[in-house]
């Protein structure tokens, strides 16, 4: 884009002018040095990206390993994946709702209801597993639809609607459990989700295939940019990204292989990550979600059906809550009257926020929600190894959440000042 030149118009705010002059936007960086400099300037200006999460995860690992060296063991790593997956799945759904500047407090007990229904369909009704799973997912989508409709068409505040959902679904958990007390899940396929592990060879193959596909995708995009006469991503940068992905993936699989290997649910998470990232970043629906979150009036005037986008986001949140419930039932192998409890919804929102999703809408990424879930469950796991009481765990989790929001707040002030909010 060198033809347009980059003159700076006299700005009212000199710091903004300086920030704009110094920082090359992503599509004009052509060397590693420029990328690195651009990234560092972004950080100084407040655009931290995934930096807080990564730093946070490192801190957590260091602190908890110091306190109990079992934290950084293969067996704990594998356990962590299984423990994190229900929360991560629910957090993925919540990202959609948060991006449109709404909230869904019902996801916790919706996952509970889903788990109970699944257990009953499989046990008492003897349905095949795919029928039970589909039915439960449909329930989640339906609950999401009802809540989304109330928010979008009637105009009720989502906080109140989903709070009502939370209470009502809690009641439904108790009603559906009835006098049974505990319902055991015995279906092998369902149990396998959380308790079966991929053969290590398969895990390695998956990592390599992912790296290859990722590289192919990046190169394809680069080709298209060249064809459109735009500045392409340098091949060096692509190589670094692919290498990093490969390294992290192989390291994770190798580490897990020393214990039981990657659980099946890990593969499920990977698939969900890829699919939903594509939906949010590469489809017009995803674009509309960001627009409705950023400026609903602008979206409306652009011809976007804002109501339909809102309802769709709540349906996604509901469906993912149900899926999270299925995975949780798989892990616990039973459901009881406490299903859906334990502040899952607050943890899911916290995970998304820690990962960088704004509560005010317009910002959020799927990968960040996964990392945020890892932070929350990592802290929980670490404290469990230390034998801390429930009370202590709650307090620590609260501190972590506040720290994350504080970092994001300070960063946002920096971003506003340099015009990147």
């Amino acid at each position, binding site marked *: 884009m060198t033809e*347009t030149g980059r003159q700076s118009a006299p700005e009212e705010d000199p710091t903004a002018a300086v920030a704009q002059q110094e920082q090359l936007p992503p599509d*004009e960086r052509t060397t590693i040095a420029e990328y690195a400099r651009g990234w560092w300037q972004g950080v100084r200006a407040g655009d931290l990206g995934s930096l807080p999460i990564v730093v946070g995860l490192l801190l957590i690992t260091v602190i908890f390993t110091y306190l109990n060296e079992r934290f950084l063991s293969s067996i704990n790593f594998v356990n962590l994946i299984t423990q994190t997956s229900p929360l991560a799945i629910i957090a993925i759904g919540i990202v959609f709702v948060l991006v449109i500047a709404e909230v869904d407090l019902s996801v916790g007990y919706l996952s509970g209801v889903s788990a109970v229904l699944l257990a009953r369909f499989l046990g008492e009704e003897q349905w095949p597993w795919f029928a039970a799973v589909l039915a439960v997912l449909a329930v989640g989508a339906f609950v999401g639809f009802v809540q989304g409709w109330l928010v979008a068409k009637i105009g009720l505040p989502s906080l109140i609607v989903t709070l009502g959902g939370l209470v009502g679904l809690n009641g439904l958990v108790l009603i559906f459990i009835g006098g049974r007390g505990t319902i055991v899940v015995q279906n092998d396929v369902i149990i396998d989700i959380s308790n079966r592990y991929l053969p290590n060879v398969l895990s390695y193959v998956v990592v390599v295939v992912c790296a290859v596909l990722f590289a192919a995708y990046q190169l394809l995009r680069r080709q298209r940019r060249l064809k459109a*006469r735009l500045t392409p991503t340098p091949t060096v940068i692509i190589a670094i990204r692919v290498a990093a992905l490969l390294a992290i993936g192989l390291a994770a699989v190798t580490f897990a292989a020393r214990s039981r290997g990657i659980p099946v649910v890990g593969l499920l998470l990977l698939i969900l990550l890829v699919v939903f990232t594509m939906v949010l970043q590469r489809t017009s629906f995803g674009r509309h979600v960001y627009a409705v979150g950023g400026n609903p009036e602008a979206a409306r005037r*652009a011809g976007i059906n804002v109501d339909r986008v809102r309802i769709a986001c709540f349906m996604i949140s509901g469906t993912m809550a149900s899926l999270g419930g299925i995975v949780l039932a798989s892990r616990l192998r039973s459901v009881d009257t406490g299903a859906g409890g334990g502040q899952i919804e607050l943890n899911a929102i916290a995970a998304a926020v820690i990962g960088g999703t704004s509560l005010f*809408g317009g910002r959020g990424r799927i990968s960040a929600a996964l990392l945020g879930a890892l932070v929350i469950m990592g802290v929980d796991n670490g404290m469990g190894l230390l034998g801390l009481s429930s009370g202590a765990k709650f307090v620590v989790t609260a501190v972590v959440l506040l720290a994350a929001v504080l970092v994001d707040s300070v960063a946002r002030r920096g971003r506003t000042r340099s015009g990147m909010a």
Partner: protein
Amino acid sequence: MVSGERLSTAVTEGTEAPLLELRGVSKRFGAVQALAGVDLTLHRNEVVALVGDNGAGKSTLIKGVAGIHPFDEGEIWFEGERVQINGPADSAALGIEVVYQDLALADNLDAVQNMYLGREVKSSLGFLDEERMERAAGDTMRDLAVTTLGSVRQRVAALSGGQRQSVAVAKAVMWNSKVVILDEPTAALGVAQTRQVLDLVKRLGDQGLGVIVITHNLHDVFEVADRVAVLRLGQMVATFPADGTTQQEIVEAITAGELKEIPGMTTDKRAETA
């Protein structure tokens, strides 16, 4: 009492049919007659400044053309043919685009994403064709000679007021629009940014579009307008060619232009100045 002069449009422009012509349009909101018998003509390659005091009916007139509050009476002619504008889709289909005062941009998206909002281009697989959109957006900015934007991939929140206005105008112009209406485009801008936007408006006129600019700022009027249309209390009281009038004359028309009918009073016939 000062009377404004109404010039025949045949004198100011050539013999080509006007791009947009409003004949005797009226709009009433309950007991309030917001517009009464307004005539307005717009030609290709022409910038018309629509001026008037608060409450004169400028926004109502624009919203009628845009289809948001369709007119109660009167005729709309577009490129020599009678048309009906009953909703925003009708005006968009004709090629009429409006840049509202609040710009309607999403701050969390970049310029390309805003310009293509609601009209995203997809590749054969159904995913967004980012490269094509970025190329086209960059070309549009280049064609409009917007040099101060730098990258079309900057978040709109990071742009200055003038740059945001440029993005909003580019968004309106990208879609084979024939008529572009701007509502107070420089109201919130500083001196340098106002300059940017006015240059852009002039260029739009040069490129064959018809432009209507609503403004309070008489300095802007003399910068860009070919003609000035003055509304007062819902009536078109005067039309001047920009280089044939003075600020004084326009102000007098805005504040005391002669009305065909006084709201709330039945009048005997006043002599119409032809």
